[in-house]
């Protein structure tokens, strides 16, 4: 199953390398990884999509926590989220198909951001399914080039991912990779 893991990390040189290196070393394959700043300039947010089972996600999250520069880790696959991917697609567009493609762009609520005599660049955002669907209908016209950002993800509702917790860094032991809580509740009927 695909898991979307969000890691809040210190915005310092080499942190991306540490995270990516951890995935490689522990034998996990990254489907997509995006990094960007947050509203706090000293913190960056990584969204990592990885295809693995539940046990391995728990392992992975606890390994991420071992990195000194990693502040918080969440598996957003367990909560309702908004997911967005952005793609730019350069597609053949001539007099014959131009109108048709513009109709498709309308239907998918995408945008044409560049036009030439023989091509469009189309920008589309949405969840992965929507983008896959759009690419499928464009394919017959001839995709010249394509780029995707990879998924970014945010939990729904007003509560932030990082409520300032007891250490001032939002870290809660019980959250940690779901380690103690699920196990003990599983064996002893919860508490």
């Amino acid at each position: 199953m695909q898991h979307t893991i969000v890691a809040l990390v210190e915005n310092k040189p080499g942190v991306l390398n540490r995270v990516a290196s951890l995935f490689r070393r522990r034998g996990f394959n990254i489907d997509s990884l995006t990094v960007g700043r947050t509203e706090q300039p000293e913190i960056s947010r990584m969204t990592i999509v990885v295809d693995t089972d539940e046990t391995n996600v728990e392992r992975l999250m606890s390994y991420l926590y071992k990195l000194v520069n990693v502040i918080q880790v969440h598996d957003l696959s367990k909560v309702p989220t908004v997911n967005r991917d952005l793609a730019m697609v350069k597609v053949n567009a001539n007099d014959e198909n131009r109108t048709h493609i513009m109709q498709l762009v309308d239907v998918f609520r995408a945008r044409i951001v560049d036009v030439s005599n023989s091509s469009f660049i189309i920008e589309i955002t949405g969840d992965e399914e929507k983008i896959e669907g759009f690419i499928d209908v464009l394919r017959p016209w001839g995709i010249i080039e394509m780029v995707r950002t990879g998924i970014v993800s945010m939990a729904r509702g007003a509560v932030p991912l990082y409520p300032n917790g007891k250490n001032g860094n939002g870290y809660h032991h019980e959250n940690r990779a779901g380690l103690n809580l699920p196990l003990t509740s599983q064996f002893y009927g919860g508490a």
Partner: protein
Amino acid sequence: MKLTGAEILWESLRREDVEVVFGYPGGANLPIYDALPKFPIRHVLVRHEQGAAHMADGYARASGKVGVALATSGPGATNLVTGIATAMMDSSPTVFITGQVVSKFIGYDAFQETDVTGITLPITKHNYLVTDVRELGHVVREAFYIARTGRPGPVLIDITKDAQQNSTDWEYDDSPIQLPGYRPDLSPSEKDFQTAVELIQSAERPLILAGHGVLMSGAMNELKEFAERTNTPVAMTLLGLSSFPSSHPLYLGMMGMHGEAWVNHAIQNADLLIAVGMRFDDRVTGNLKTYAPNARKIHLEIDPSEINKNVKVDVALIGNLRDTLRQLLPRIQPCEHSDWLSFIDSLKGESAVRDIQNMPDNGKLHAPHVIFDIWRLTNGKALVVTDVGQHQMWTAQYYHQDIPGYFISSGGLGTMGFGLPAAIGAKFARPEAEVWVVCGDGGFQMTQAELATIAQEGIKINIAVINNGYLGMVRQWQEFFYDSRYTATPMRSPDFVKIAEAHGLTGLRVTKRNEVEEAVQRARQSKETVLIDFRVEKEDSVYPMVPAGADLHQMIRRPLPNPVLENVENDI
């Protein structure tokens, strides 16, 4: 006050209570060496940087303080790598300092430039590249803090030559360290304690598995009290040895691949395993599918990533082991497990007849005899450091250690060549201790150059080379699993006695069991380092043995003595 980076480094080390640094100078760390004489820190010149790394590691394990090694850029730094990985696998609190080329040359393949932070990223707890002298003091403080707190481990600081040379206004800053992503201070929840207590009080066949964490958190007394109050026998991991006195009635001995048979059988028969400061390494569990099939498991551990990694547990008490045990103890009511303890005793009786110490003397010098005699003659009071291989397992089995921290060995990485330099480091940490290093003939030659360090520094240790003319452990695997095809394991070694003498040290040779005592006593009485070349039985094997991946109770046992066969062999 205006100080150079090099001066800031040494002053920071002094503030961290560093007394000795093991190192090797070179182009990219010359400014650091140039500033050294101004500071009250002893420097030990090694013969290879790997030696420096193992010395820092041995020092850390013997003292409980942070061990420090210093090397130059490029080859100096890469030579540290084996030692850093060793310290990482065994969670040894160490700080490694490397020189780096001038910052404007980084990335240009300058002379002796290597991406040291990149190379050591997966084998350090954390690492730093310092290019700006103004960051240096702060980084050194963070590095020591990270190395010694939480689950300890190696931290590397790579310092460019310009950051060593440049000056800045600097005052030592002792404000609390702020690391938003670093959490060394986890503690178990009340609910976890309750669950653990219920399991402990209701267990009929409980067993404590004691690991390295007991020593590192200093929880020896708490562990003893816990074991005594609950009448629970204590099994040890290799690195847990010495954390619980071997002379204690509840002491069982080592578990795992070369653990005692009764210990492995006890694990397989237990209904509760209380794992304290250990990580269910594959050398300890054997086949995970059949490991302790009837046991509930409680895991006391400081590193959350170790929970459920290899063995699923019923409850985890995450936190500093000593603090956790201190909180657990008042909640525990005394209990008795006399049936369980007598069951384990009955297993011991069966093992005793297979113990080589109880077998008739066949006139040959067996390594277990040598180690047993060293234990006897040192009254069990020596600080023992091992290398890696058969002699290591025999030392674990036959040097019955009572003194916490007096058994030092490379466990997780299994680094041949660790023994001699680690023993040097341990001697600097515990100058009052009688230090014995037990090596094989193979591992000894990997770092034998450090004999020159011993001679130059004038330190006194005792070196027992268990010389069987083979890479013994590999030979044993070839015997058991590769039809005795001894490919590349027979080893012709130099004359170790002459090697010792060439370094100005004393060398002795022992070929018969009745010579062991005299040689050991001569070594002990000598004021200088003595090497004893024990020419032992060539093709002896370590028993019991759980083959890799086999069930823990499926052990290869030492064949029972057969007097008829022995006689035939002697006649030939």
